[in-house]
């Protein structure tokens, strides 16, 4: 875990309202694994840091993908190149890559951990299928990638007419990210899938117990420490708030 004073290095649009921000954060770029996140804070700004999956990591740079959904994301997207943020990470446990092929299933902003998952899967010699869904064609993240890419839209304006979960083929290893209701659906179909879960977070480092993920076996785990990646079937989805923004546009 590193605490990096990271300047914004770039910004590009990848879907309607969806942007990728780059930061110079060498220590994090060198050590991050797919599914891990960074916790970003800045002054003047809101009190708490904001958690974001690492989207890409190359050389000394990391990227995150986001939409403006509240004060924090609005301020981040209004930052000019060179503006400095405090970047804490990499945090949490990422995906575990096992087997010969993987299906990535992402809804809306759930693309966030997937480019790194592609990287890590390829490094492990796996074949990658990426199923990416969103509300309409305009909301699909243009950067989905893999040996095979399947598109899905709620309105049928591009690719499969329906959700990414329904559009996806079966596989031994499924990694999913998106709104909690989508992950709940994924859990029904693939209890063994690895899913990246979102929760409100206080610290991101395991000390506040704010990021409780309810488990079927009873009790709670910390999304920031034991998660954010869980075995889909282990999570008690009905007890997890379903309205979080990460999901916007899915």
């Amino acid at each position, binding site marked *: *875990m590193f*605490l990096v004073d990271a300047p914004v290095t770039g910004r590009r649009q990848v879907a309607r309202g969806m942007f990728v921000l780059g930061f110079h954060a060498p220590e994090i770029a060198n050590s991050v694994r797919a599914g891990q996140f960074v916790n970003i*804070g800045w002054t003047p700004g*809101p*009190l*708490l*840091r904001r958690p974001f999956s690492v989207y890409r990591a190359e050389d000394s740079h990391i990227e995150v993908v986001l939409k403006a959904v509240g004060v924090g994301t609005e301020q981040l997207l209004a930052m000019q190149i060179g503006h400095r943020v*405090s970047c*804490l990470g990499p945090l949490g446990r990422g995906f575990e890559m096992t087997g010969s092929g993987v299906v990535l299933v992402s809804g809306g902003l759930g693309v966030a951990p997937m480019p790194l998952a592609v990287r890590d899967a390829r490094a492990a010699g796996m074949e990658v299928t990426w199923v990416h869904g969103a509300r309409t064609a305009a909301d699909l993240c243009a950067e989905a990638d893999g040996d095979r890419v399947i598109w899905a839209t709620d309105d049928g304006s591009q690719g499969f007419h329906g959700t990414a979960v329904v559009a996806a083929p079966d596989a031994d290893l499924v990694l999913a990210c998106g709104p909690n209701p989508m992950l709940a659906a994924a859990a029904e179909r693939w209890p063994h899938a690895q899913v990246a879960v979102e*929760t*409100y*977070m*206080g*610290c*991101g*480092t*395991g*000390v*506040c*117990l*704010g*990021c*409780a*993920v*309810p488990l079927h076996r*009873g*009790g*709670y785990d910390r999304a920031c*420490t034991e998660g954010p990646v869980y075995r889909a079937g282990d999570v008690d989805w009905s*007890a*997890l*708030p379903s*309205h979080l923004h990460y999901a916007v546009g899915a």
Partner: protein
Amino acid sequence: MKPDLSVEVGSLRLRGPVLAASGTFGYGTEVPLLERRALAGVVSKGIFLRPREGTPPPRIVETPGGMLNAIGLQGPGVEVLISDYAPKWAAWDFPVLVNINGESANEYGELAARLDGVPGVAGFEINISCPNVEQGGLYFGNDPRAAAAVTEAVRRRTKLPVWVKLTPMVGDIGVIARAVEGAGADALCAINTFVGMSIDLSSYRPRLSFRTGGLSGPAIRPLAVHLAHQAARAVRIPVIGIGGIARAEDALEFLVAGCAAVQVGTATFVNPKAIEEVHDGIAAHLQAKGFGSLADLPRYLPRD
């Protein structure tokens, strides 16, 4: 010459004035980035005799300059504390106090008795903001007799330092402060979180599953400085200031207002190095003003 920052809180000698507040530093084993030389002590996450699951999510909500939390005192219970954490604490060069909780005075007493003598447990911080089941769901913390009863119950079962952490949700904090001083507390910690609520405008219900939560962070600092000051004016035992401390200047306000030491809570979430920066900043302030030790810092504590 580096100024001497050590302080005495009752019989406990601390190497500095900055401790980690309960519930914001886990069991002291989690936060990796802090330089521990600056850490004068840790108060563990609040514990009950038995394990507790805590409340369903959402457990936290950000507010202007602060946050609400309703963790529900999730914890593994005292036996796991003793088996898994205390042995680590025993090896550290700063004390760990255990934040103890119960639903009756007797439960607090039993918890203290169970922990008394366990290597690694340096003392107790009694959290009296817990629901008082004996008296029908009021808080021990806003009834001087109940607060004193809990303090006595713990005092009788241990020779270790007993600190009592006061709630701000009272009409007059001085009354509670004097009551627990009379019951044998070695020090007071002021303050715990304020009760607050936040409403979600899509569901028209509270954002927190527990409905209300405790407000912490910079937003409450001016209130906490005042309450810690009022507590310090009311008693002769040391008072440890808590509430919204993020920078050395904030801690110095509490120290000048009559506190012997401080605890840093929420700021740790925002800045894992907060405790270190507060500690070093206090040293820098003393040095800049030519004070050789923290004891030289002027205090504003009219006893009228």
